[in-house]
């Protein structure tokens, strides 16, 4: 990197961090390499697949497209910040119950997109779920069980009571 190092300060999963880093380094690499938060994944490096999705100041961003200088002072949430005190987040539990994760590589980004969706729209319609997750590619599931997971988390119901939730 040709740019001089500088100190960037932001909060990650509620914790204040200050790191010396090249300002144009991708937020994705800062999270994975400098902070060793490897839950956030790289799938394409061009903002198409959404595997690197994190929440920044209440917005969903592709961290592969964010130079870290843009994160100065930001509040960032990654998949590692979802579960608290060892308990799974309701979305994580729903993904586990409904089969929303298969190979798991898109899962952290998908969870962040779903968290973002439910934070602005706690009871989304199927069309809103489809739109909210359209920037996150999953090659394993065909998405149906991911939709089921989001609906289950939104309803906070029991696994046995939800089926055929895929109609749009």
């Amino acid at each position: 990197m040709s740019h001089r190092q500088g100190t960037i300060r932001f909060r990650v999963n509620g914790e204040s961090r200050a790191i010396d880093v090249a300002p144009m380094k991708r937020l994705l690499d800062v999270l994975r390499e400098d902070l060793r938060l490897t839950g956030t994944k790289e799938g394409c490096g061009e903002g198409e697949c959404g595997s690197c999705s994190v929440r920044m100041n209440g917005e969903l961003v592709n961290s592969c497209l964010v130079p870290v200088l843009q994160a100065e002072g930001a509040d960032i949430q990654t998949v590692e910040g979802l579960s608290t005190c060892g308990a799974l987040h309701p979305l994580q539990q729903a993904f586990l119950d409904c089969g929303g994760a298969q190979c798991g590589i898109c899962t952290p980004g998908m969870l962040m997109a779903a968290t973002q969706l439910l934070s602005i729209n706690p009871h989304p319609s199927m069309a809103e779920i489809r739109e909210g997750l359209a920037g996150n590619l999953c090659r394993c599931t065909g998405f149906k069980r991911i939709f089921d997971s989001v609906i289950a988390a939104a309803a906070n119901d029991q696994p046995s009571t939800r089926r055929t939730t895929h109609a749009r």
Partner: protein
Amino acid sequence: MSTSARTRIVGASVPRKEGVDKLVGRARYIDDMEREGMWAGVTVRSTIPRGFIRSIGFDKRIDWSEFAIVTAADIPGANCIKLIFEDQPCLADGIVNHCDEAIVLLAHPDKHKLRAAVAAVQIEYELLPAVFTIEESERQETIVWGADNLLKNFLLEKGDVESVWAHAAHIVEGEYRTGAQEHLYIENNGMIAEWSETDGIAVWGSLQCPYYVHKSLLSIFDLPEDKVRVIQTETGGAFGGKEDYPSTLAAHAALLAMKSGHAVKMVYDRMEDLAATTKRHPSRTRHRTALDQDGRLLAMDIELATDGGAYATLSSTVLSRATLHSPGPYVCPNVRVRSHAWATNTVPYGAFRGFGAPQAIFAVERHMDEIAAAIGIDPIELRRRNFLHDGDTTATEQMMRDPVILDQLLDRALTESDYHAKRKRFARENARSAVKRGMGIAAFYHGSGFTGSGERYLNSLAGIDVTPEGKVRVLVANTEFGQGTNTILSQICAEAIGIDYDDVIMAPADTNIVPNSGPTVASRTSMVVGRLIERAGHQLVAMLREHAGLGEDFKSDDFLAACERYRSVHGEVVSLCRYEAPPNVFWDDQKYRGEAYPAFAWSVQVAQVAVDTVTYSAEVEDFWAVQEVGRVLNPVLAGGQIEGGIAQGIGYALYEKVVLQNGHMANNQMTNYIMPTAEDVPPIHVFFEEIPFQHGAFGAKGIGELPHDGPAPAILNAIRDATGVSFNAIPLLPEDLFAQLATEPVVAEAAAL
């Protein structure tokens, strides 16, 4: 018989074994791993499709002393990726046969220095003529592989097709084509390798088949078996795409580790992964079919050709499965299949979910609708009249000894989809609308496990051990890459022993720890390897009853106490089982006849498609899949397999196009290689009929590949139903629809019959 016994854990949707790790971001994929003093490695690739390498130069503006540099000359053993044939070099030596072929490897402590270094390696070539299509290759004017460009051919013959043509009531011909398809696993290929004089090689990576990598490294490095160790890391999707390629990447990383004296990580970015690694074989299939006046099949003459790419890799076995699936699930007294895999100067095509079957089934199931139209019979009725039933024989003279319930699957698919009422309604509505809707079906089987004598040759070994810490471990080389291996095999283990699901863990997929239970391919893990685990569990319980006083009724604690009693006398607690072929399974490789597969999974799929005749887009609005896959071991995982396979099949039909220029993938980005998103995949309705297979684990047959076989023909049949126009090639993009619909006007009442 275990298949009819009541079960506690098998058949239940227990949570995915490694699910929590994946959900909290703790699962460790290859790019999440670091090793002490690790360097980064990169590949310098051919920019031409075929030619001699005249020189390799290194730009003096780079300080090459900082780099490890590897060429073919550094390979200690044989310069070939050992698989079926031995024609593919690990690194090109003197000649390249496709764009993106690896020639030079570089490693450096700072990964940011590698991009400039790759650009500073100057390779001079002398161009040779190249071929890029099946047609160019089969003309044999330019020979690019062996003596004749022919990677493999098969002849499958039953009866005598030539005796039929003269007296047949109908003869229908058709030609069908399928394109390449990229796996697009979201985790790219990656490996870390270490090398030492005393311990040899250790590689960690994203892969399906640890013992394939192991076998290949032994010969490339000329090392004994105990000096090569292969460990699978969490793998972010594979779909066949990490069956053979990891052997190449592991060798590259290990060569750099040896040369540099450091651990070396090689992780491809998306563009490199798309350009350099395998894809599904493109195909061309020609059908000539004779029928009697009632629409019963008299003869099927099939010519099937695949493009195998520059080296043989898995093309012979892909062609074999394509050949065996090409006549579809029908009875026909006279069948001839002539199949050929041709070499071209592109990246070798490889394994992809379905392994030749989706290509073959696209052709035959599209052709059935063309036959129906040509002879004036309903496509459903045509299929019904010709379905295989119990006691019938396939084209290889394999008798259907187990129940075949195609009629039942079809009835349920028609009912669930409301097929007949919808066709009537669409025929009425289409006349007044620019959006034309149609319904299409596909019926098919998928052979479970290796083809023919394959499972006998594999001779897999798998088992269970109990650690001194009281953990019951499943010992297999079969890998988890999303499909549920960990969960299913743990369920089978717990059920067979009679302990809890949570008592069971998976031993690491590490060739130093687990036996060779064969590759994780061919929809074989649940049925074949699961059966070994079921037997090993029963064997372990019997052993503990005989030697360690285990009682008839026991809880997990009693079982573990018995294990400790056994350990104190006999040492380790381990139970291994080797593959035993089901009786009556005999395959004649020479005559290409006999029991092609120990079991078949069956499916009928229905697609509802809307074609917009203004925008020329085709959208799958709804999808139904009814299948018989033996016993369903975990309904949530099984449903996930079917839905995921169908989504890939929809992509194969309507979205995913590999654009080649000089044999190089020109659209090697997710921006312009398009897969279905959350907004593109329709509702998918999945139904299982269960008939336990007595030789599979707790009645299981194969499931993983089956769902990918049907969507493409079902969708294109639905488009024909909607528009009255036949489309015989995939992918079918809007521009393809435009090209044909603009010249061939849509038949207003196509769907009316």
